[in-house]
C-alpha cells in the first residue's frame, strides 16, 4: 500500500504534495534583454490555506476570534488583503476570507478550534489550491495579457486582491508589492496555468525558481 510506505518514510502528517512537482525547470528562459529576466516565477509551497466564513451576528464574533488567534484582523474592505504572510488574510467574498501561511502548523485545526465555537465555517483548502508568485518589472504586462482588470501601478496597489479569470482559469490575485503578485488557482489547473504564464512571460524573459 503506497500510503503506509510514505508514512513509514516519515512524511509529516500534513505533507503537502506539490501540484507542480517536476514541472518547474529552474533557470532562465525566454528572451530576456540586457537587464535580465523580466519576471521570476516561483511556486509557493507548502502552504496552509483555510477559508473562514460567518453570517449575521457571528461575523463580528469570528473577526474577534480571528484577531485573537492569528494576531491579525480580517480586512473589512472587499478585495483587500492584510498581513506580512505569517499569515496573509485575503477577502474573497462577503463575510468570507482566505487565511494563508507557509506551512508550519496545522492551521486548519487551529482555526477550527478558535472559530467554530462562535458559529463560523472553517474549510481547509490547502490540498485544493496551488499558488505561484510572480515578481519583477514585467509582472503587470503578464497580468494584462491574462486578466481583464486594470493593472496600472496606481490602480491595483499592494494590499488589493481580486478574484477573476486569468488565462480563462478562475484565479485569486493578491498584490504583495508594486511588482510582486501571488496568484492562486485550483490545483488541477496548476500545470495549465504555469504553461500559460510562462508563454506570456517568454517575450520578457523569465526565471523559474
Amino acid at each position, binding site marked *: 500500500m503506497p500510503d503506509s510506505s510514505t508514512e513509514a518514510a516519515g512524511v509529516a502528517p500534513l505533507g503537502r504534495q506539490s501540484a507542480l512537482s517536476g514541472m518547474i525547470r529552474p533557470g532562465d528562459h525566454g528572451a530576456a534583454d540586457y537587464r535580465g529576466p523580466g519576471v521570476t516565477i516561483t511556486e509557493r509551497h507548502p502552504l496552509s490555506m483555510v477559508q473562514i466564513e460567518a453570517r449575521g451576528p457571528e461575523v463580528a464574533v469570528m473577526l474577534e476570534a480571528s484577531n485573537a488567534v492569528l494576531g491579525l484582523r480580517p480586512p473589512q474592505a*472587499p*478585495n483587500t488583503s492584510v498581513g506580512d504572510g505569517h499569515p496573509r488574510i485575503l477577502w*474573497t*467574498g*462577503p463575510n*468570507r476570507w482566505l487565511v494563508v501561511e507557509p506551512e508550519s502548523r496545522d492551521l486548519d485545526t487551529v482555526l477550527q478550534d478558535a472559530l467554530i465555537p462562535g458559529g463560523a465555517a472553517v474549510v481547509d483548502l490547502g490540498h485544493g489550491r496551488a499558488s505561484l508568485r510572480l515578481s519583477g518589472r514585467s509582472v503587470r504586462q503578464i497580468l494584462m495579457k491574462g486578466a*481583464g*482588470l486594470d493593472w496600472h501601478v496606481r490602480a491595483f496597489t499592494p494590499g488589493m486582491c*481580486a*478574484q*477573476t*479569470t486569468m488565462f480563462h482559469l*478562475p484565479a485569486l490575485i493578491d498584490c504583495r508589492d508594486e511588482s510582486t503578485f501571488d496568484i492562486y488557482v485550483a490545483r488541477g489547473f496548476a500545470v495549465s496555468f504555469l504553461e500559460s504564464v510562462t508563454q506570456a512571460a517568454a517575450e520578457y524573459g523569465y526565471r523559474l525558481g
Partner: protein
Amino acid sequence: MIRINCPYCGLRGHDEFSYIGDATKQRPASPADATAAEWHDFVYIRDNPRGPHQEIWQHIQGCRAFVRVLRNTLTHEVLATGLPQDDLLAGASGPAKTEEAKTGEAS
C-alpha cells in the same frame, strides 16, 4: 464586452457572472397553500419583455455574491445594479450606476 457593476467588486466583465434568472418572479407567499397552477407559473412561466428588465446574476468567478441587474433586453445596456434586495427602479436604496448607464443617459 458588457460590464456589470458588482456591489462588492466594481465593474467586471460579464463573463465573470452567471445569469440566475428573472428577478421579478415572486415565490408563492404560502408555499404549502399554493396551487399547482401557482407553482407552475412560478417555476416555468416567464415573460419576454423588451426594454429594462430586472434580473439576478451571480458573480461566480469573483466574490460569488448575487447581484440584481437592471438590463435593457433590447440594447443589452446595464442600467443599474445592486444587492438582491435593492429596488433598482426606485433608486432610493442607492444602486450603483454603471459607466454604461451614464453613457446611455448622456447620449
